[in-house]
């Protein structure tokens, strides 16, 4: 399949005509070049949006925590303190960049880079809408798992390179926590792959519908459990509270980025916030119907009265809205959890992963396989409705 932004665009006549025209003008085939330009623009847009979301994340975090604790939160800079994030960004750039004397300089530089590369790489397959997905790889979700494990390496190297005990502890913890929780997450994803019959996000989402009862979340009882397994695992993988042991302020000062200042620290923070967004997006795509809009409004056929380029794009915007609404709702839940639950102890963390989530995820996987086999891939609601329609009895 390998849908991508370009393959979406190339169904419009305007795009094709433009490519043809440009190629004729230049005398060579410019398809790739134009694709590159479009991709570059899209990537810049995505990165911009993500940076904004990262900034907004810090703002939202403070605002929501203030709300939960009956405080005001940032309210001086700009309306409702909205410009606080800009102020923070400016402050980050202006901060002095300190590399500890005893640090491993090369690693110190490379650690935030690995984090950023890992997170940005995973953005490539996040399905914002049916058209606006940078590239819908065949191995989409599997690729995402692989590339985002760079973040673990980055965190470990960040902790290692600082040559500080706090950082080292934080880095070790972070790496082992991330790899541990990758297991239940992987197993939960395999579970959904098994139902959907493919790893690309297009396939994963196309099996679902716009209404909640068509989501994989409610496909069967085991996916319902699997969603929570995935979500807990994802929280831990992104080092969010209550799993923020690598940066536990009360014990490790600031964890693996204790020695980082200025922009380097900012990149760690940015990577974390974007990763939270990405895992929420993946949760939405896997379990909550992705960008699907009820009544199939998203594919633009409802607007067939309009010219296709407008109708389709209205559908796309509806899908974008659907995706961002769900993802940001989950994002809110993440922040909410952070300010509600106390931090786990490190042994509790490992116990939770290996003795609860992993067995549950394995059990879920088997049970979903059995379910798909037994009910021929039907969901609970399809089963109920087929029962209601009286087709019971013979095979």
């Amino acid at each position, binding site marked *: *399949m*390998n849908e991508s*932004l370009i393959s979406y665009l190339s169904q419009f006549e305007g795009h094709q005509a433009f490519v043809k025209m440009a190629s004729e003008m230049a005398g060579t085939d410019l398809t790739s070049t134009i*694709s*590159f330009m479009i*991709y570059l623009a899209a*990537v810049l847009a*995505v*990165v911009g949006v993500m940076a904004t979301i990262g900034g907004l994340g810090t703002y939202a975090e403070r605002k929501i925590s203030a709300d939960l604790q009956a405080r005001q939160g940032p309210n001086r800079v700009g309306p409702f303190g909205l410009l606080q994030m800009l102020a923070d960004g400016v402050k980050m*750039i*202006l901060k*002095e*960049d*300190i590399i*500890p*004397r*005893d640090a491993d300089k090369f690693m110190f530089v490379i650690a935030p*880079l690995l984090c*950023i*590369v890992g997170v*940005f790489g995973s953005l*490539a397959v996040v399905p914002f809408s049916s058209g606006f997905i940078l*590239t*819908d*790889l065949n191995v989409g979700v*599997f690729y995402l798992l692989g590339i985002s494990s760079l973040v673990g390496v980055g965190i470990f190297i960040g902790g290692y390179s*600082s*040559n*500080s*005990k*706090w*950082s080292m502890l934080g880095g*070790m913890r972070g*790496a082992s926590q991330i*790899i*541990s929780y*990758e*297991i239940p997450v*992987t197993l939960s994803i*395999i579970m959904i*792959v*098994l139902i*959907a*019959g493919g*790893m690309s996000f297009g396939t994963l989402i196309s099996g679902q519908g716009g209404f909640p009862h068509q989501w994989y979340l409610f496909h069967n009882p085991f996916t319902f459990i699997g969603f929570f397994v995935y979500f807990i695992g994802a929280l831990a993988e992104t080092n969010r509270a209550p799993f923020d042991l690598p940066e536990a302020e009360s014990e490790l000062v600031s964890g693996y980025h204790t*020695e980082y200042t200025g*922009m380097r620290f*900012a*990149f760690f923070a940015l990577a974390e916030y974007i990763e939270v967004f990405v895992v929420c997006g993946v949760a939405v795509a896997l379990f909550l119907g992705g960008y699907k809009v009820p009544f199939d409004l998203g594919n633009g056929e409802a607007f067939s009265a309009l010219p296709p380029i407008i109708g389709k794009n209205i559908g796309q915007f509806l899908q974008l809205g659907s995706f961002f609404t769900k993802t940001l709702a989950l994002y809110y839940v993440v922040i909410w959890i952070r300010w509600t639950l106390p931090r786990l102890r490190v*042994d509790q963390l*490992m*116990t939770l992963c*290996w*003795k609860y989530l992993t067995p549950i995820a*394995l059990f879920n996987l*088997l049970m979903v*396989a*059995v379910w*798909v*086999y037994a009910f021929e891939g039907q969901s609970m609601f399809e089963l109920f409705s087929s029962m209601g329609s009286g087709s019971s009895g013979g095979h």
Partner: protein
Amino acid sequence: MSSHNLDVYMPILILMGVGVALVFGAIIFGKLIRPHNPTRLKEQAYECGEDPVGVAWSNFNVRFYVVSLIFIIFDVEGALMFPVASVFKKFNEIGRGGLLLCTLSLFVIILISGVVYCWKKGDLDWVKSFHLDLNKDSESKKVEA
């Protein structure tokens, strides 16, 4: 199954390039406008205000390794299960789902038996394996007795 060309990997490369450019760009750009006056104290690693004792790169407890060991086994098993899982639906539709179910179940059960072993032996216990080091003497005495 439609064919594709390698352009699908383009955004990944662009994103990574943008990421690298962003990191280095921001740091190089920042170099122009931010202060730079290192002092000895500033460049010291933070250790609650004291001078750092030794280096941080000492060797760590083995339990980190055991966790990552179990992880990598699971990781590889997951990698093997992904293609099988993605053809499960197709096989099920042509009525061969039972075969896949058996294959997958056997695979997962073998995997589980390894985990059960590690669980029973306490490799999954963070605290217990820590205590093992301390209590080993008394335990071995018990065994001798």
